[in-house]
């Protein structure tokens, strides 16, 4: 495929509107609605497939994926702290963002595979859910240790009951319980509209990304370099892990995409209250203004190549 997926063009349109300061904004309630639809439909799709055929090695795969999420956060921390000379709080907060995952990037990956006609394992949705959490916890431990001062109960409540994890798991449960036939009446909204909803979501993400682009003039080349290099390295690691645990080409592409992506919803909210000393502009600029556009424009096709090459 030589041309960009049209949904990605909506992101480009949003960026263009933001840069030109066009009078364009998705109303906040619509943005909330669109992101809820995305989370639910991704969850439901996974649930339906998971009910039909689940992997017998699921526990082992989940363990490998969680270990990967933790390792990526640690790796990011070490690079930022000792190579990038960031202070402890900021290194830990950015590491938490990069170890965690972005549902928006995953959705673009799903659309990419759909367009290429490549299937993927249903448990990818579970991997998406479980990868949100461990890196955030690692980030807090790296910044503050296990000592007092961290309200663990509250933090766990926030990461497990945040909108992302909750709606993904809820959709998964509904899809699993209802099965393909049970969801027939719902599929016009949740399945058929998926790409249209994703397009609107990406339009708004383009606008939001340009709002944060100013941040990277202030925070320098070092952060920008990290935000471009980390997705490639982490994506390659994700592809190797996916290949090693026996995923198909499609699954490998998606695991690489997850590894490469950086959270910009769950992690920022958790980091702001758990590591208040960290500057939220640093991690949001990196994740949202650089890594997210990079992943959806260049990264996903690249991870697809890596996956094909590994499987060849």
């Amino acid at each position: 495929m030589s041309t960009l997926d049209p949904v990605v063009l909506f992101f480009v349109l949003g960026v263009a509107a933001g840069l030109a300061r066009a009078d364009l904004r998705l109303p906040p309630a619509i943005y909330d609605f669109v992101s809820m639809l995305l989370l639910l439909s991704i969850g439901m799709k996974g649930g339906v497939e998971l009910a039909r055929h689940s992997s017998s090695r699921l526990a082992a795969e989940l363990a490998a994926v969680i270990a990967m999420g933790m390792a990526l956060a640690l790796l990011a921390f070490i690079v930022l702290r000792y190579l990038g000379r960031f202070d402890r709080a900021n290194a830990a907060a950015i590491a938490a963002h990069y170890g965690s995952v972005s549902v928006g990037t995953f959705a673009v990956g799903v659309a990419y595979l759909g367009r290429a006609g490549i299937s993927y394992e249903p448990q990818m949705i579970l991997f998406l859910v479980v990868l949100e959490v461990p890196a955030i916890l690692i980030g807090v431990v790296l910044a503050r240790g296990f000592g007092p001062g961290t309200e663990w109960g509250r933090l766990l409540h926030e990461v497990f009951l945040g909108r992302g994890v909750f709606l993904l798991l809820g959709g998964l449960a509904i899809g699993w319980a209802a099965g393909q036939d049970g969801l027939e009446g719902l599929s016009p909204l949740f399945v058929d509209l998926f790409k249209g909803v994703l397009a609107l979501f990406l339009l708004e993400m383009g606008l939001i990304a340009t709002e944060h682009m100013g941040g990277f003039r202030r925070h320098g080349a070092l952060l920008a370099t990290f935000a471009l290099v980390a997705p490639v390295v982490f994506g390659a690691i994700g592809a190797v892990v996916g290949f090693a645990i026996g995923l198909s080409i499609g699954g490998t592409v998606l695991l690489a995409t997850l590894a490469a992506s950086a959270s910009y919803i769950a992690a920022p909210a958790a980091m702001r209250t758990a590591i208040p000393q960290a500057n939220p502009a640093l991690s949001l600029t990196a994740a949202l203004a650089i890594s997210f556009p990079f992943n959806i424009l260049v990264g996903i096709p690249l991870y697809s190549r890596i996956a094909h090459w590994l499987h060849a």
Partner: protein
Amino acid sequence: MEHPTRKLVTIITEAALERDLTRDLELLGIDGYTFSDARGRGTRGRRASTWEHNQNVRLEVLCDAALAARLIEHLRQRYYDDYAMVLWLQDVEVLRPEKFR
């Protein structure tokens, strides 16, 4: 006509703090307050209020001078270093002073 006066404390801060602030207010014994969405810019950048993680809230509390002083001291110690927060204090006349300790 003169009415009894109370303090109006107005706080503009990050929406991420709303839940924490609600809890603080209750611990301080303040049982009436108003949150509203806000947008603007300050020394910590612009908050456009369209995206939930980049929103501001405006919190208004009517109370007596002693309670206002405790509230301000608490906010100063707990949030001023790490969060975007602006607050100011005014004398206002109220019609039903028994509502606002």
